[in-house]
């Protein structure tokens, strides 16, 4: 007969092995980012020789230089502007539509909804070519407004889907009560439906914010004007122009990555929910 001690030791060993495996992978995930930060604190002279993770002298002035000279301050503000504008736009437009798809009746409702859903699933890899032509015709290329509209469109279908699914599962009593009290349809949407949808709205906000902040290809196609570029585009420009100024590039990368990591750590719950609900849809 095997003793309970045997089982205990076996369990402890298995757990140790599992932790070893998980920690190794976790370190692999974190290390490149630590190296990025470490490199951003070295100088043009030391960065090519100093292989230590914690540099002897910490050159925080690289961040000042990147912000001012590298222009990352400007690009940072651009990215913030695009992210905030697109997220607000998506919240309003997609929640209006999702509410209508879930609650209101009108001819063509299902057709329209399924068109949105189909759009979510059909990949058109060359769409940016046509989008470029379209924006040129509308005189919206090289404008912040054109980029914002395009990015709202990118996030729309998924956001509508998430919100509609939520409204569908939600009881109507509160809304009916508000209607009886004389609230208009828009009043119900604004005062009842939106506040109720807060948990899903959080998912929609975080998901779209990450998406806009990290977007590259539309920014590449739409902007020639340096002053309008968001961070992702600016990083590639900077790398192309100053290929060897690694400390400043690394500072720029850190400036770009840090807000995302902070938002992620704070809003983890919603991001994970978003990923898994996306998966459920597929």
């Amino acid at each position, binding site marked *: 007969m095997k003793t309970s001690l045997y089982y205990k030791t076996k369990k402890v060993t298995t757990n140790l092995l599992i932790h070893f495996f998980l920690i190794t992978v976790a370190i692999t*995930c974190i290390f490149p980012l630590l190296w990025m930060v470490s490199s951003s604190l070295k100088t043009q002279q030391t960065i090519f020789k100093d292989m230590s993770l914690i540099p002897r002298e910490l050159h925080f002035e690289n961040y000042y230089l990147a912000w001012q000279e590298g222009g990352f301050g400007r690009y940072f503000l651009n990215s913030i502007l695009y992210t905030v504008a697109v997220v607000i736009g998506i919240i309003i437009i997609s929640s209006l539509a999702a509410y209508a798809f879930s609650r209101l009746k009108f001819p063509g409702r299902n057709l329209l909804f399924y068109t949105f859903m189909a759009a979510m699933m059909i990949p058109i890899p060359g769409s*940016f*070519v046509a989008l470029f032509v379209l924006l040129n015709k509308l005189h919206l290329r090289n404008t912040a407004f054109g980029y914002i509209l*395009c990015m709202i469109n990118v996030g*729309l279908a998924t956001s509508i889907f998430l919100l509609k699914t939520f409204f569908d599962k939600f009881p109507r009593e509160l809304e009916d009560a508000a209607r009886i009290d004389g609230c208009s349809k828009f009043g119900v949407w604004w005062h009842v439906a939106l506040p109720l949808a807060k948990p899903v709205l959080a998912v929609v906000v975080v998901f779209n914010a990450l998406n806009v902040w990290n977007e590259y290809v539309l920014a590449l196609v739409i902007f020639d004007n340096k002053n309008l570029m968001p961070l992702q585009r600016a990083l590639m420009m900077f790398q192309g122009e100053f290929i060897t100024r690694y400390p400043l590039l690394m500072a720029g990368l850190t400036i770009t990555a840090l807000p995302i990591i902070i938002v992620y750590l704070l809003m983890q719950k919603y991001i994970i929910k978003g990923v898994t609900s996306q998966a459920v849809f597929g």
Partner: protein
Amino acid sequence: MRVKSTLENYLFVLPAAGIFAIFYIIPFIWVFQLGLYSWDGILPTKIFVGLANFKEIFFEDKIWWGAMRNAGYITLIALTLQNALAFLLAWACDREIRMKNFYRMIFFIPPVLSEVVVGLVWQWILDGNYGLLNGWLANLGLAQWSHNWLSDPATALTTIAIVHSWKGFGWGFLIFLAGLQTIPRELYEAARVDGANAWASFRNITVPLMIPVTVLVAILTILGTMQAFVLIIAMTDGGPAYHTQVPVLRILASMRGSSRFGYACAQGISFGVILMAISFIQYRFSKTARQV
């Protein structure tokens, strides 16, 4: 009254439908139209060429098919290496162990970063002259292993595939973990009472119940990886000498490099059709797999 109410209802969907029509439907139609033309994107005159663009893609454009093969190679590595790692990690986390939430938090950091950030950081680490990886190899006395990882045609593509997998596995991990957590614990309990060992319950409970999730992750991995290109722009920009080109990079090059807008659209359509076919086949395959 009823007409007014219906009109009011339309107002709710109007902004969404408007943006969607202008920025999705119109470009969608234009891609198909432009694919039949030869056009530089600037001149007012487009020359109708019928299916000539498609003919060129299928019979003459060797770089395009090379790019397709490269994307296929990266996808193959993502499907095996990345998803196997994701599954293994999910399986390791799907039990009573400490720090489970900590691991979950860390593994999803690479997926939330942008491809530009990930690409440029890894490019720096993998730099042939001053990169950390070669520095370590030299310190370990393995200098003969050090390498121009991204500028040597022999290693560039594989290196990119590995970085791509690094960025992506956390996402598969989350979905696998969510899938594993839906399996009722009682099933494992019952199996244990019946004398099944760990391997037998893995083989007979976990694997069959995870087939739908696995197929889903596989479809999304294929669609996502075949279309990945920003990471490549940041790491090699398709070089050395076309060795890391992928289809979307080619579309971008047709448009921006050689100003062949019609050709770029035709490439987009051909690629889109291939992607649709892949996901359709996978979908059918998963249906039969579920019935067995």
